[in-house]
């Protein structure tokens, strides 16, 4: 989804994996793709654009039909049913509540090594930028990674919500998880 944010970084990672990837920002594009990545960026901006340009319903419909969606950072916020304390337009597809800027402002943005359930090999080097977290995950949401009590990676059927940015590192294991949905 190329309304705003770092979609170019997602496109180049997917390209490296040999996946045919292209930017979509209208109904025609969204109805053509087999899977969708909602990139990092500003969730308010993307939510406003989704609503203003009438793309919310088509994405919701395609998601209900089973189209896999990976949402990173802002993408995770948009996938949520609810955001704490802030009113903003969402896709509302996953049974999760998120808190935006949960670690603080930019000076608190960080990198760390993360253990992820079901991921083989060394811990994942995760980049968190003004990142959100999941504060409530209702069944059937499956929690895949946490920092203390904060959920940072979760899956619900064909939907994968990620608080960090796999598109900013070389490790492609999160994409393999997504492509396997």
């Amino acid at each position, binding site marked *: 989804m*190329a*309304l*705003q*944010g*770092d*979609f*170019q*970084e997602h496109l180049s990672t997917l390209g490296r994996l040999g996946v045919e990837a292209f930017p979509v*920002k209208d109904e025609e594009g969204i109805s053509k793709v087999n899977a969708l990545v909602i990139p*990092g*960026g*500003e969730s*308010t*901006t993307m939510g*406003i*654009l989704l609503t*203003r*340009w009438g793309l919310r319903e088509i994405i919701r419909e395609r998601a209900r039909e089973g189209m896999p969606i990976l949402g990173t*950072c*802002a993408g995770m916020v948009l996938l949520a049913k609810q955001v704490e304390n*802030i009113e*903003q337009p969402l896709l509302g597809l996953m049974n999760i509540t998120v808190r*935006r*800027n949960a670690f*603080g*402002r*930019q*000076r*608190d*943005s*960080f*990198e*760390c*090594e*993360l253990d992820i359930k079901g991921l083989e090999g060394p811990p994942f080097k995760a*980049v*968190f*930028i*003004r990142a959100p977290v999941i504060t409530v995950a209702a069944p059937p949401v499956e929690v895949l990674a946490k*920092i203390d009590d904060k959920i940072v990676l979760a899956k619900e059927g064909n939907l994968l919500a990620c608080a960090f*940015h796999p598109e*900013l*590192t070389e490790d492609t294991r999160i994409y393999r998880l997504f492509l396997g949905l």
Partner: protein
Amino acid sequence: MTHIILSIGLTFLSLFIKLKFEVNVMEILTGTWRVKVGLAQMLKGGVIMDVTSAEQARIAEEAGAVAVMALERVPADIRAQGGVARMADPSKIKEIMRAVSIPVMAKCRIGHFVEAQILEALGVDFIDESEVLTPADESHHIDKHRFTVPFVCGARDLGEALRRIAEGAAMIRTKGEAGTGNVVEAVRHMRLIMDEIRKLTILPKEELVAEAKRLGAPYELVRWVAEHGRLPVPNFAAGGIATPADAALMMQLGAEAVFVGSGIFKSEDPYARAKAIVDAVTYYDNPKILAQISEGLGEPMPGIDIRKLEDKDLLATRGW
């Protein structure tokens, strides 16, 4: 005997605590280059708007801005009023930070690293070491590597852009000519930067050292640009952008996002114009949509013919 048992017990306890500690403690790295450039990457495809109050900041956020620049006066007013322009009052910046959920940027004077320290302490998300304010140092910019918060700096050409990146800027923007409502200088700077990048990609390797000397930029960065065909940090447009068409023009010329300073809140209908510029940056390559969103926005800000400005009034020539 009790002593021995106690000491063995204590040894085990401390070992247990140590293990437990090592397992639970995660190494957290803040202020890394990846995290700094990362925020700039998240702002791509967006519009960063100058605001001077909490109310304006909320209008900007509702219109779809990806970030706001907290100021006391927009560049057009700084230009009109003259005198020394400094960092904004911290209470103004805090007021704006409280009003919105999107990132808040603020400006410090070129070379004024204490203003930058204050802005970092306030918790702003990005610092603009800006030629719009009166420079505090006429030889040196701030050593931006020393800060946790990322910096954006203006540039008129590739050499200037790479010098700022060498000092630690995590985002580059064209200088344009702020507060004029005239996009001509931003176009000039973007074209020059993109031309110089394209030129580097076709130069034979042995000519890169001389080219680095000509540009006044570090060889390592020159070589990186020659190999990748782009700047190592996001490249945004700023200075004189006043209409959705201006914003789309800068995007088509290669900008990855757009700053709008005086252009929004000095126009007749700020909300409508802000919204239209956000749409224009997303659909910059679709003239049909651009035509639709450019309709009925009211009067844009009054523009200034840059040829009629005296040299002393040019902001873009500040910076070294």
